[in-house]
C-alpha cells in the first residue's frame, strides 16, 4: 500500500512537471514562435508612454531576454524554492511556491490565488453537496423505477440539464430570481463567509443551484446507467439467490459498486472546479480563481495565467491522486495491481 501511494505521488509530481513545462511552452514558446519579441512582450507592461529605455528596463527586469529554457528554469525554481523580485529600490522576497508577480498590479501571484480560493471553494463545495445528493438519489430512484413515468421525467430533465449552457442557465436564473422576483441578490454580491455568513449564503444560492443543476443532471444520468449496469451483474443475482431482501441487495451490494466509480468522477470534478469555475464565476461575478484567470487572460497578465493554470492542474492531479488512493481502499481488486 505504501509503495502504491509512493508510486502514485511520484507519478503525480511528474505529471505536474510535464504540465508546467507544457503550460510554459504554450504561453511563452508559441508567442515566440509566432514572432513575438522580448521587447514586444515587455511593451505590454510599460505603459502608454514607454521610452525604448523603459522597454529595455522591463525586458531586463522580467528577464524576457533570457533563453526560454532559462526562463522556465527560473519559473520552476520559483515554484520550488522561491525567487527574489525587484520592486524598485529594494528586492522583494517571494517565498516558495512563487509564481512571480502580476504584470498588471504587481502583486505576488500565489497569495492572490490563495485569496481567491475561498470563493471558488465556497462555490464548488456547496454545489458539490447539492449535486451529489440530488444527482445520485435521482439516478438511483430512476434506475430502480426504470421505465416508469418518474424515470422518464427525471431523465428528460437530466438530459435538458446537460444540454443547457451554464452561462445561459445562470443568466436566466439571475434574470428571474434576482431582477424580476428579487428573491436572491444579483451578480457580484459575493461576500466572504467570515465577513457575513448570511450574505455569503444568499449570494451563493443561485450559483450553487445553477452549477449543481448541470452536474446533478450529469450525475443522475451516470448513476442511473451505473446502477442499471450493476443491477444486471451476476453478484447481484447471487445476493438475491441468497434470499437477501431487495432493499439490502440495493443498499449493500448494488450501491457500493455503483457509487465507487461515481465518487471517482466526483473527486475529479471537484478537483476541476477548484481550479476555477470560469463560466459560473464570470456569470455571477464571483471573485474566485476562475474570474481571476479570465481577467488575467484579458489583461495579458501572464504570471497570473500561468499561476492559475498550474494551480488548476495541481488540483486535477491532486484529485486524481486522492481518487486513485481511495479507489485502492474501496476496491480490493486494485491493491494487487
Amino acid at each position, binding site marked *: 500500500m505504501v509503495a502504491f501511494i509512493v508510486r502514485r505521488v511520484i507519478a503525480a509530481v511528474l505529471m505536474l512537471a510535464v504540465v508546467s513545462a507544457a503550460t510554459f511552452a504554450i504561453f511563452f514558446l508559441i508567442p515566440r514562435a509566432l514572432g513575438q519579441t522580448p521587447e514586444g512582450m515587455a511593451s505590454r507592461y510599460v505603459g502608454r508612454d514607454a521610452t525604448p529605455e523603459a522597454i529595455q528596463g522591463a525586458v531586463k527586469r522580467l528577464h524576457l531576454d533570457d533563453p526560454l529554457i532559462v526562463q522556465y528554469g527560473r519559473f520552476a525554481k520559483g515554484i520550488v524554492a522561491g525567487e527574489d523580485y525587484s520592486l524598485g529600490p529594494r528586492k522583494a522576497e517571494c517565498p516558495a511556491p512563487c509564481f512571480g508577480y502580476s504584470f498588471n498590479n504587481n502583486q505576488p501571484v500565489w497569495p492572490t490565488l490563495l485569496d481567491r480560493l475561498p470563493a471558488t471553494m465556497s462555490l464548488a463545495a456547496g454545489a458539490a453537496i447539492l449535486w451529489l445528493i440530488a444527482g445520485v438519489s435521482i439516478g438511483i430512484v430512476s434506475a430502480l423505477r426504470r421505465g416508469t413515468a418518474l424515470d422518464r421525467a427525471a431523465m428528460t430533465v437530466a438530459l435538458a440539464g446537460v444540454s443547457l449552457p451554464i452561462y445561459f442557465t445562470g443568466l436566466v436564473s439571475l434574470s428571474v430570481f434576482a431582477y424580476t422576483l428579487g428573491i436572491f441578490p444579483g451578480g457580484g454580491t459575493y461576500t466572504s463567509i467570515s465577513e457575513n455568513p448570511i450574505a455569503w449564503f444568499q449570494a451563493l444560492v443561485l450559483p450553487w443551484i445553477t452549477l449543481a443543476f448541470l452536474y446533478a443532471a450529469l450525475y443522475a444520468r451516470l448513476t442511473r446507467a451505473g446502477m442499471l449496469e450493476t443491477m444486471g451483474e*451476476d*453478484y447481484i443475482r*447471487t445476493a438475491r439467490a*441468497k*434470499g*437477501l431482501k431487495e432493499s439490502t441487495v440495493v443498499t449493500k451490494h448494488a450501491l457500493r459498486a455503483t457509487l*465507487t466509480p461515481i465518487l471517482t468522477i466526483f473527486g475529479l470534478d471537484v478537483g476541476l472546479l477548484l481550479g476555477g469555475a470560469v463560466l459560473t464565476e464570470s456569470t455571477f461575478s464571483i471573485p474566485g480563481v476562475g474570474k481571476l484567470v479570465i481577467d488575467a487572460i484579458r489583461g495579458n497578465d501572464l504570471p497570473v495565467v500561468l499561476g492559475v493554470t498550474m494551480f488548476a492542474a495541481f488540483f486535477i492531479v491532486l484529485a486524481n491522486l486522492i481518487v486513485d488512493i481511495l479507489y485502492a481502499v*474501496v476496491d*480490493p481488486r486494485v491493491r*494487487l495491481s
Partner: protein
Amino acid sequence: MTTAPGSSAPDSFLELRDLRIHFPTEDGVVKSVDGLSFKLDRGKTLGIVGESGSGKSVTSLGILGLHKGGRAKISGEIWLDGEELVGASVDHVRTLRGKKMAMIFQDPLSSMHPYYTVGAQIIEAYRIHHKVSKQVARKHAIDMLGRVGIPQPDKRVDSYPHEFSGGMRQRAMIAMALSCDPELLIADEPTTALDVTVQAQILDLMLDLQREFNSALIVITHDLGVVAELSDDILVMYGGRCVEYGSAEDIFYRPEHPYTWGLLGSMPRLDREPTERLMPIKGSPPSLINVPTGCAFNPRCAYEGRTGGKATTEVPQLAETEGGHLVRCHMPPAERRAIWENEIKPMLEST
C-alpha cells in the same frame, strides 16, 4: 403427467407444471420458457441440457423466484415441498431462497461481489436465515470452506474472490450455496469456467455433498459429459421447451430426438480419435421471439422431410415413448429408433 396439469400438491419434492416465463421487450415477447414440466425427488439429480438460449438458465432462476416482480410474465406452477411458488408472495419465496433452495452460478468470479471477502459473503448468506452472531457465522463459514476442500480455511475466509484460483472460487461458491443446508440445489454450468482436471474434482465434490445433505440437485449445462456423470434423469431443452426427457440411460443409449442426437454427436469424448470429425448441429438456436412455426427444431433438423410436412405446420407434442421416456417429435417412435440404431449410433461408435 405432461398433459394433465393439476392444482393439488404433488408427491414429488419438486414439480413444475407447464411453466411459462415470457419477457415482453420492444422487439416482441421473448418466450424463454414455454410450457415446461418435470418432477424431481430428494436425493435425485436432474440434468437440464441445451444450447445457450434454450431457456435452461431462465428455468432455474424461475424456480428460485428471481424473475418475480420484474418484467417477466410467469404462469404455470412450481411445487416445492408441497408449496406452490408461482402464486406465492415475493417475500415468501425470498425466505425460501438460500435456505430451502440454493444455487451455484456459472462464473464464480462475476457471481461473487468483488468488494467483500469470501467469508463475509458466506457469513451474510448464513445470517439471513439463522439468527446467530457474526462469530458463530464466521466459524460456520470456515467450516463450510473446509468441507468444500479449501486448504487453510481460517485464513482464506478473509480473502477476496479475486485472490482465489478458479477452482477454489467455485468451491467457495458451493460453500456459500450449501451454507444453509438447502434441500434443492441448482447448479448452473458449475464447471464451464474450469479446466478439465478441476472440473472432475468439482463434480465429485458436488456428488459427495448431495449425498451428505440428501438434497435434490438440478445440474444445468450444455455439456452432456457433465450430466452423464451426475444425473439420474436428463431433460433436453430446445427453444424454451423440453424436447426429450428420460433417465440417463434413455438419453445416452436410446435417444430419440434428432436434437439430442446432435448434442451427443457434438460431445467431445476422450475415447475418440482427435482426427475424427464431430457431428455438429448446423445452424444456430432459434429466435425466442419468432419461434419457427411447427417444430421449433425444423430449420435445423436433418429429418424434417420425414414428417410429411407436419414439421413446419404443427407443433409436436411431448409424448411418452416408453417407461417415462418422453420425446417431442413428429416422427413415429419406430422410425426414430430405427434412425438411431441404424444411422446415428454406428456413426458415433465408429471407432
